[in-house]
């Protein structure tokens, strides 16, 4: 640099090299242990990913599973001629319930 320096240089604290080497030797894992440690970490990850499904897992109810897994087939309709209709009380005024059953014909002995 052609320009004159304007800031004074200060001396770093003595013993810096010894502290640096001590940090290097203390803070780093042994080179010989690096490969086994990495291998163990990879194996642990693989084991975690391949773990069997827990039996306590919440299962979908059969009906929900069917609704999710298969397309709707619609409601099967059956014409019932001369059926007997019984009105069943419903707790919801918007819902009407009927019990429909074929009228039984008396059978002769």
């Amino acid at each position, binding site marked *: 640099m052609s320009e004159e320096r304007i800031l*004074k240089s200060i001396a770093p604290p003595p013993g810096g090299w010894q502290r*640096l080497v001590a*940090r290097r030797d203390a803070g*780093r894992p042994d080179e010989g242990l690096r490969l086994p440690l990495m291998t163990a970490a990879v194996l642990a990850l693989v084991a975690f990913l391949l773990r069997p499904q827990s039996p306590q897992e919440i299962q979908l109810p059969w009906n929900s599973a069917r609704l999710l897994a298969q397309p709707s087939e619609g409601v099967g309709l059956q014409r019932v001629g001369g059926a007997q209709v019984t009105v069943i009380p419903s707790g919801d005024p918007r819902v009407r319930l009927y019990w429909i059953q074929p009228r039984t014909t008396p059978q002769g002995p």
Partner: protein
Amino acid sequence: MSGARGLSTPQWQELYQRLEKPLYNFAWRYVWSTPEAEDVVHDAFLQIWERRARILPETADRYLWVAVLNLSRKRRRWARTKQFLQIEASPFELAATDSVESEVAQGEEARRLHVEIERLPEALRSVLLLAEFGEMSYEEISQLLSIPPGTVASRRHLAVKQLRARTGSIR
């Protein structure tokens, strides 16, 4: 310097002996604390040690300067965050208690210079300190900071002008 890839332990030690003082001086003007500045320098040397197998000896200087610059900025940001959260005293107060070991931090002139360096924008401060302690040409500083050499020159000029105008004590 050889062109071989990889940094040997003697080369690492030689780097430390050659660059400890300028890097320390640079970091000290960011963190204003002897242990913090030494930590920054040591962190940079430990980084280069970790990557020694992949580092070219001829680029190690540049790597260290970039590492110290980044680490200093990071520490400074963290210190300001702590100051904002009122966890710790401000860098000014830290430096005042740390001045025993530093001849620069003694006296009224040094204190004013310290305050004015603190007031410099980051863009001017980094250029000024690299020019002061990095023993680098404007071209080398421009490569380090990814800015044109002309910008380096103008920023350094502006930084010195501001310091002179505000302190009135710089030659």
